[in-house]
């Protein structure tokens, strides 16, 4: 194969190719999954972390409540109980072999964080403190809520993210911050690297690696009201689609029950874990109608639907689009010690002192259960089933292994990102021992990426990126959020097609090479549209209600036809489907009640 030399492609277009960087491992993204993999692989190999934001800006840092593990520091707990809760929480769509790994290795992962220096809150006897969270129970759901979420006040994600950054620094990981990855280089089913845009200086760089790992995060930014960062635009899954590979279970997007009204900012489930109430306009704890036993500690899909139903039926506060999360009865001391960030956020964003007043909340786009299909060793599957792409790994929110199935339990995301990030690191080390050579970089490796950048910089249409994005977000929030129905999804599908057409006719204001946000936002929109198209098609295709996917025209779960994972490809301008069976080992599907 002819190999890439920057000189040979310099004059293809006006976009300069500056450099080819060679590393054993190229990790894309810098959240918990990516940096946990980097910490692991950097013990033996040379690792580069390439990320569109500086590592500690990654959105894992916004996670608040905790990381689940059956440490039993506060009360009796067993991995089997955690497994049951996760399987039931997933509405039986999670793969039970992967879930078993998740719950068994959880205590190891949490203790390793402590060993790395994470500042966990402590019990009176000096162990890692644990709190309650929705859907986590005692004794296979028969007992009450359990103390399982390990936490650092309500800043757990921040504490873990900084701990991983610090340990990457200690291990000599090479960071490339503010390099926006544009595409994968895969030829003959071998991943050879990625191509990235230097955000600060402009120009295309090629990262040539023996192994590539994606920990690129989620895509809930496709919604108008979302808790997730402005940077969480589905970059990883979109690049995978463009490489001709499938995505799995994309129709499942979690809405967090308690987003700060209008802002969508996360109010941690820890607020309810510590005893907070949800209240409607009549002053009623309405969860008693929807989850009489678990009340406010029902899983997120159940709680978000309950809140949305209260709002839709006119029982929002003053008839508006919000209900209250009421913490007042917890008292000032408990709020300021255990939920200080919630107090700060409510004050800074809504000017509400939650010691004295209830917090207005509404469901907010939060977490992507679906993503890039991988096996339990985080190898990306070319066919979505069994055949790995050589040298390509993924973990965390961008991936779908699948442990969350149709609905993720709170505190299982930090766990999944960390645990499968660590497994990806170990898997990469094993791979590099067997395959120590660098595969050739094809001569045209950067061409597609250069063409994309060139195309956007020179586009002379009349459409504004921001207008298309705002319409996409509003449409998705209106028609593909907590509740969905076939008729609206059909219309939405047409709407998304027309937005894609308009996207071909954009024009941006900024044509410069230096920190060109106009350019990166345009690239992000293209990716969000790709991901949106697959989500809408998947939601229309799945004619049942399961977990976070709730079809009002198909209100029941249908295990006969739909106890299976969706695999979706983009081919010839439309979405094609295939399916993969769910792995069931210990717990047979049952009706789900809380």
């Amino acid at each position: 194969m002819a190999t890439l030399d920057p000189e040979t492609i310099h004059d293809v277009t006006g976009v300069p190719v500056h450099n080819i960087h060679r590393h054993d491992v190229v990790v894309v993204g810098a959240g918990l999954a990516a940096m946990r993999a980097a910490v692991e692989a950097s013990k033996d190999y040379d690792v580069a972390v390439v990320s569109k934001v500086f590592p500690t800006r990654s959105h894992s840092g916004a996670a608040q409540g905790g990381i689940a593990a059956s440490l039993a520091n506060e009360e009796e707990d067993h991995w089997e109980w955690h497994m049951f809760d996760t399987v039931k929480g997933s509405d039986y769509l999670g793969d039970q072999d992967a879930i078993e790994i998740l719950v068994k290795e959880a205590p190891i992962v949490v203790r390793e964080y402590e060993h790395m220096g994470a500042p966990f809150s402590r019990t009176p006897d000096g162990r890692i403190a644990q709190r309650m969270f929705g859907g986590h129970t005692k004794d296979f759901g028969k007992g009450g809520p359990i103390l399982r979420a390990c936490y650092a006040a309500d800043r757990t994600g921040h504490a873990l993210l900084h701990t991983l950054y610090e340990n990457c620094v200690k291990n000599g990981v090479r960071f490339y911050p503010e390099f926006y990855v544009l595409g994968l280089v895969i030829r003959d089913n071998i991943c050879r690297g990625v191509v990235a845009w230097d955000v600060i200086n402009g120009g295309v760089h090629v990262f040539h690696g023996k192994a590539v790992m994606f920990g690129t995060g989620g895509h809930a930014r496709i919604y108008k009201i979302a808790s997730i960062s402005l940077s969480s635009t589905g970059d990883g899954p979109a690049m995978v689609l463009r490489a001709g590979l499938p995505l799995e279970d994309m129709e499942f997007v979690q809405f967090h029950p308690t987003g700060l009204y209008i802002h969508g900012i996360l109010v941690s489930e820890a607020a309810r874990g510590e005893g907070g109430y949800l209240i409607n306009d009549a002053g009623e704890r309405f969860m008693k109608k929807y989850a009489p036993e678990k009340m406010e500690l029902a899983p997120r899909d159940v709680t978000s639907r309950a809140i949305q139903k209260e709002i839709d039926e006119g029982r929002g506060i003053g008839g508006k689009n919000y209900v209250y999360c009421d913490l007042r009865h917890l008292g000032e001391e408990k709020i300021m010690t255990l939920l200080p960030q919630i107090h700060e956020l409510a004050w800074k964003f809504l000017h509400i002192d939650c010691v004295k007043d209830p917090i207005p909340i509404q469901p907010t786009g939060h977490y992507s259960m679906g993503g890039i299909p991988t096996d339990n060793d985080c190898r990306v599957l070319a066919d979505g089933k069994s055949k790995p792409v050589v040298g390509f790994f993924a973990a965390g929110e961008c991936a779908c292994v699948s442990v969350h199935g149709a609905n993720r339990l709170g505190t299982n995301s930090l766990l999944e990102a960390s645990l499968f990030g660590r497994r990806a690191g170990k898997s990469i080390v094993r791979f590099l021992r067997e395959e120590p050579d660098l595969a050739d970089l094809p001569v045209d490796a950067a061409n597609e990426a250069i063409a994309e950048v060139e195309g956007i910089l020179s586009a002379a249409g009349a459409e504004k990126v921001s207008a298309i994005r705002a319409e996409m977000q509003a449409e998705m929030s209106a028609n593909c959020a907590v509740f969905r129905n076939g008729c609206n999804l059909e219309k939405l599908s047409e709407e998304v097609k027309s937005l894609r057409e308009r996207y071909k006719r954009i024009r941006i204001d900024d044509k410069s090479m230096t920190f060109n946000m106009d350019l990166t936002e345009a690239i992000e929109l293209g990716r969000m549209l790709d991901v949106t198209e697959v989500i809408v098609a998947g939601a229309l295709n799945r004619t049942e209600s399961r977990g976070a996917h709730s079809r009002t025209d198909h209100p029941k779960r249908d295990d006969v036809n739909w106890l299976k994972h969706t695999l979706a490809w983009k081919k010839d301008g439309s979405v094609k489907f295939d399916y993969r069976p769910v792995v069931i080992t210990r717990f047979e599907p049952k009706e789900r009640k809380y």
Partner: protein
Amino acid sequence: MAANEHETKLFTFRVKRYGTGGREKEHYNQDYKLEVMKGQSVLDCLNELRWKHDGTLTFRRSCKSGICGSCAMTINGVNRLACETQVMALGGSVVTVEPLKGYPVIKDLVVDIDPLVEKLLAVKPYLITKTPPPSDQERLQSQADRAKLDGLYECILCGACTSSCPSYWADEKYLGPHAFLKAYRFIADSRDEGAREHFEALDDKHGLWRCHTIFNCVEACPKSLNPTKAIAALKRELAKERIG
């Protein structure tokens, strides 16, 4: 929620710009007028200006929840996070927005944070231990020892403190309050056994002794942390170590 939640008011945003508008090498002010709704943050407004009026207006942002540290900038003369600064609460009708002082400007409100990161790395910002941890348990730490990390571990590396520090303006090699706060986060940690290594970079003419207790960093910190207090504690520890 007040009944006047849709209340709006016209504001002028006076943005200090650089590297745009055909004036590549000079700083200049540009005024934008915007009808601001109650509840909108400075970041919301900058986004709206970018998205609707001027796509070349450039700044960093990500979480829009006050936790990632991307959008620190100088607003009405004070270093703040744009995402958690309510416009209405600023009062007046003109909002001045400038890049953080003390760092090279890349473009508009985007500054080069390499100096910030370099200095952070100088203090070996990670837990240093000599005793291996128990193999299948966490290390124990009392609640009282853990409480010593409160006010230290919450730093979001936004750079607001060091940018506000006159000692840093006078000496670009000065480590800066953010690096001291981080060093103390580890030195104060009952599990850390590397005090001497963290201290190495601090006991230097560009280190601790350059802090003149001006308290600007305390005022600047959007997370209400207190680097000056950490610096005082570090000076005490270091003095103890020197005297033996």
